[in-house]
């Protein structure tokens, strides 16, 4: 062994026992991005974990203060890049509340469909990535097939596979294209069957169970104290979902169950996500059923870009509004607002202070992954070996772009 910091050396009957510091990451396949962990190890037993973050820090909040409200959307895309529509939605809702406007009904349905598709895409990734971290490569390769279907849908609807910037202040950028509803329905038919397959592939696999069951148990009290949210919190038995408890958009009009598990272990967090995808499918199906016709964007030329692009060529008024909107943005009344939505990773909050100008005075992003990752420093039961830590890290589903902002 070279270049190892030895903290403590004790002589034992069968040799020397050393307590060492080990550097895991920042570039390591099991850290899901550029996360660096300093581990204090006694052999294979983890004594202490300290995450070092910030390798992907881009200063999103600082940039927000220098951008107009519309320009910020691409920045929010890049927070949790696995599911951008959720990030867009949180920000759009915050600004809408400051403006005192509400998106048209149809656009609210489209938004919910998009965010639920994003949730499926995010959950699919981690449902495949956790077994991969533990050595079961197969599932990840298969989930990519369904994730690709979601990506195709995203591309069809918004024009971009990943950084969609589709949800805008006062609605969505464009209406659903022709044939999109059928394609989404088709996907909703396929996914539950595939989920059943994945569950069968891994959920009864003895090795997977041994690596995840009763490993990394987080007690509900500790989970709340550490600010865990989303599936990580619900897997510990805390029945809290912002979609149900303080409904936004049209979540109060659809029926769905909040998935909880009592175990609080890695397996619980994993299986919670599978069941959540089934609920997402239910939500999408209901949305498609209920979605009315109508506007997909508020009819306010100073806030939303013109719907009819041909108008730009012949209407001076439209042209002026478009120019003003692109070049200067629009003024947002003075005030402050905190909106929280249930993003795939947990509570995603935007705290915006407006000073009445075109640019926000302060934007604070309460990124769920940032808070969830903190539990690694907290109390986690039955996380003895280094291999357990990898399982716990995978099951927490952190997206480092969101952790580092």
């Amino acid at each position, binding site marked *: 062994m070279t270049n190892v910091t030895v903290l403590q050396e004790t002589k034992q009957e069968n040799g020397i026992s050393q307590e060492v510091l080990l550097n895991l990451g920042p570039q390591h396949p099991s850290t899901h991005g550029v996360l660096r962990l300093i581990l204090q190890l006694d052999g294979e037993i983890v004594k202490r974990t300290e995450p070092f973050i*910030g390798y992907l820090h881009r200063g999103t909040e600082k940039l927000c203060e*220098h951008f107009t409200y519309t320009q910020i959307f691409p920045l929010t895309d890049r927070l949790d890049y696995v599911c951008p529509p959720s990030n867009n939605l949180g920000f759009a809702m915050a600004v809408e509340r400051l403006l*005192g406007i509400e998106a048209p009904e149809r656009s609210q349905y489209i938004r919910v469909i998009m965010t639920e598709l994003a949730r499926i895409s995010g959950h699919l990734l981690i449902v495949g990535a956790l077994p991969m971290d533990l050595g079961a490569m197969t599932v990840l390769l298969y989930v990519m097939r369904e994730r690709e279907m979601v990506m195709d849908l995203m591309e069809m609807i918004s024009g971009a596979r990943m950084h969609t910037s589709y949800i805008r202040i006062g609605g969505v950028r464009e209406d659903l294209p022709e044939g999109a509803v059928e394609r989404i329905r088709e996907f909703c038919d396929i996914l539950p069957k595939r989920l059943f397959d994945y569950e069968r592939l891994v959920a009864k696999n003895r090795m997977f169970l041994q690596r995840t069951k009763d490993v990394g148990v987080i007690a509900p009290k500790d989970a709340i104290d550490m*600010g865990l949210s989303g599936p990580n919190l619900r897997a510990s038995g805390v029945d809290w979902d912002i979609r149900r408890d303080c409904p936004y958009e049209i979540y109060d009009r659809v029926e769905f169950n909040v998935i909880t598990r009592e175990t609080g272990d890695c397996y619980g967090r994993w299986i919670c996500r599978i069941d959540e995808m089934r609920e997402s499918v239910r939500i999408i199906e209901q949305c498609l059923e209920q979605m009315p016709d109508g506007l997909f964007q508020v009819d306010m030329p100073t806030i939303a870009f013109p719907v009819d692009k041909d108008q730009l060529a012949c209407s001076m008024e439209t042209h002026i509004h478009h120019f003003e909107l692109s070049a200067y943005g629009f003024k947002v009344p003075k*005030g402050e607002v*905190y909106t929280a939505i249930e993003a795939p990773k947990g509570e995603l909050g935007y705290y915006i202070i407006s000073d009445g100008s075109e640019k926000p005075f302060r934007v604070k992003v*309460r990124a769920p992954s*940032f808070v969830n990752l903190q539990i690694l420093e907290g109390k986690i039961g039955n996380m003895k070996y280094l291999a357990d830590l990898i399982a716990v890290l995978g099951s927490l589903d952190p997206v480092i772009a969101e952790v580092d902002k």
Partner: protein
Amino acid sequence: MIVARPEFCDRIFQHFGDRIADGGAGIDMHSIEVGPEHVVELCRYLKDTPALSFDFLSDLCGVDFYPDSPRFQVVYHLYSLAHGHRLRLKCRLGDPPRAPTVTGVWATANWHERETFDMYGFVFDGHPNFKRIYMWDGFEGYPMRKDFPLRGYKDAYNPYGEEKGKA
């Protein structure tokens, strides 16, 4: 649309009297203003009183009102899982900004406070592991402050930054 003042506010004001001030109604939640000397006591009261039970610290962040005085503010967003209500606490701080830590009340404040220190230079007394979180050790200045240039300061790694001393 302004949210009506929640009933539990009376209870808090009854208990704390003039040590706290009403921050006014908001479009999302009610806010309470408090000085740094009473923050921990207030937080503990908010968490431990069964009728309030703000057991979830959603968010903690700093704000810079440069060039106003007092310049800084730390904002706490609280949520109660049992009752489903939210509350915002605001605490104005002078320069240099100092506040006591609330990690003793909610453990989740740990990283939030480190982030606030990293970005704004707020010192949280009594924090168990007080150091920068995003920026590296030895980084000078606090990037989120309003007088910190967007492009940073010029040095060997940042040729497009602003010259120091030039405002």
